[in-house]
């Protein structure tokens, strides 16, 4: 039977230690990229990713597939970790410590591997977009939020969000084509 990505994620989340490790590997790049785009620091992105997955490990019993995908759930935790870290002025690490995860020692190679996720040209093209379009593209394309979810968050209609994403992607495409 062919399982969708969401179903595979839900299965991994409900599984044992090895499955949780596989879930981490499936979302590692996306999570590091998510934090990297927001903090512009590979070290911070790694620390925030570690805390996010530690919280996911601790709280996986509360994951409810009927309320959304495991990926959405993970990124919900990520948003919370980021906002709490910003609010406190330091990277949250309480759950990481509680679970006995050691502090990550990142060498130059690890930092370089994370920095590869930046996608410098695409990031620059995204940054140049009007704020409204950038927010919509980040939500829809990078964080994979649903249109309805984005519309509710940004307090506008579903069609407005679609329009922003579509216009923004077209502008990015034009800009990147111009760079090539």
């Amino acid at each position, binding site marked *: *039977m062919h399982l*969708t990505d*969401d*179903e595979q994620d*839900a299965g991994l989340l*409900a599984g*044992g*230690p090895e499955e*949780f*490790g596989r879930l*981490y*590997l499936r979302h*590692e790049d996306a999570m*590091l990229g998510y934090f990297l785009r*927001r*903090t512009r620091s590979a070290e*911070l992105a*790694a620390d925030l*990713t*570690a805390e996010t*997955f530690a919280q996911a*490990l*601790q709280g*996986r*019993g*509360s994951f*409810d*597939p*009927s*309320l*959304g995908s495991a990926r*959405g*759930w993970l990124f*919900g935790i990520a948003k919370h970790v980021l906002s709490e870290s*910003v*609010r406190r*002025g*330091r990277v949250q690490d309480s759950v990481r410590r509680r*679970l*006995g*995860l*050691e502090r*990550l*020692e990142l060498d130059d190679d*690890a930092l370089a*591997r*994370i920095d590869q996720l930046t996608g410098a040209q695409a990031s620059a093209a995204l940054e*140049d977009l*009007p*704020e*409204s*379009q950038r927010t919509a593209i980040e939500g829809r394309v990078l964080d994979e939020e649903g249109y*309805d*979810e984005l519309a*509710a968050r*940004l*307090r*506008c*209609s579903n069609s*407005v969000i679609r329009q922003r994403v579509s216009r923004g992607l077209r502008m990015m495409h034009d800009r990147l084509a111009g760079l090539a």
Partner: protein
Amino acid sequence: MSRLPELHQQLVRAARDQEAQERELARLRIPARRLLLALSFMGVVLASATIALATSGLIPIGSPVPPNHRLRAGVGLGLPEPGSSRLLPLRVSDPEGGLPWGMRIIRTSREEVCLQVGRVRNSELGVLGVDGAFKDDGEFHPLPLDSLPAHPPEIVGFFVDATTSCFLPGQAFVGSRIAMHVSAAEGSLAERPQTSPRRDLRNVYFGLLGPQAVSVAYEQEGTQRTQAVLPGTGTYLIVQPFSTESSAPSLGGGGSTTFGQMGPGRRELLTSITYRLHGRLCERGPANVTAHPCPPSPGPSHRELTQLHERRRLHMPLHVHLQIDNGLVTGADVSFRAPYAIDSARHYYSVFLPEPECHPRPGIPPMEAGDSIAIDHDVSSGQVVSTHIVYPFLPLRRQCMKGRTTIEAVYQEVDGPQRTIVGKITLRQPPGTRGGPHAKPLR
């Protein structure tokens, strides 16, 4: 290949530790399930004892589900209206028998309509004390009205009791609950439903489609089935064994559609919904399964679309007090005097931090984006409303407004596209302060 193999290894190790701890805890407990198995082995026919007892009406009644002490009359969902609860005459068998599943409607003091799913015993909705809920006492625990969540699940997000879904009167709602525990207990009542055996999980689909709805069609094990909805409310309830083959709409799926307009979503169980519109039967669903499609739902009118860009402005003063800690602007207390009373969930105030387009293009109306903080409680006209904003000058948030931020107090009706800007203020970041923990001081 992992980019952070050290983190990967640490997580797997922590998961192993966690699993070992859980095994140890389980060993120390005397679970009711094991006790029941022992009794069954002794010849007492008590397999799934709660269920067996339930069919004969002998299941004992336990203590009611604890009330939610966070419920407040004028906040979030509000309080259940006395006498407004109605157990719907829907009884759906569980795949393994026992107490049937049912659903009730509760109206709240803030004009929300809530659908609550549970097990039914003698015309009472409740949950079963099995598989972790109520310490496996095997009893039926009635759900009191004040066990509702304090805030609408759609607002609170992932960590809520999702046996309840709320929406406004006149709205159709289609919801589902994948992997609901057989106990019907959720949230803090159930222990780690994700670790429960699959046989103890159910996929529950429910909805309220309004008086025009006639039936819903869905697929089960490759067979197309049709179920009549309850006349009057258009409610339905479907309980199936847990399966990951049918996906759930996220967060209850499109609760804001008006009656007669709701169709099955792309990822829902329902394949079509039959309505009686203007005296004729018609179906909403994909073109390949509907023989008599209903007239298409009217999209937003040109007027409604243009209203999205219109703003009524009251130009009332906003008061802002910045919180500065060691040169870091950590927050802002915002207050304003409410021009209108808020007496239900149909309308609300919010504080909005618009993110202007850095490079607006001529001829294209500006699209609105930004952070919004909803003020989810009743307000008297003239009352001072206050809220708090975290990091109002966060540089990541407003790249083309360096050192400035705009705050708007907004009034909005849930069904109305037009917003009223109560007041607006643009603040300058004090020189020498930082807008975020990692930002440089503003010159």
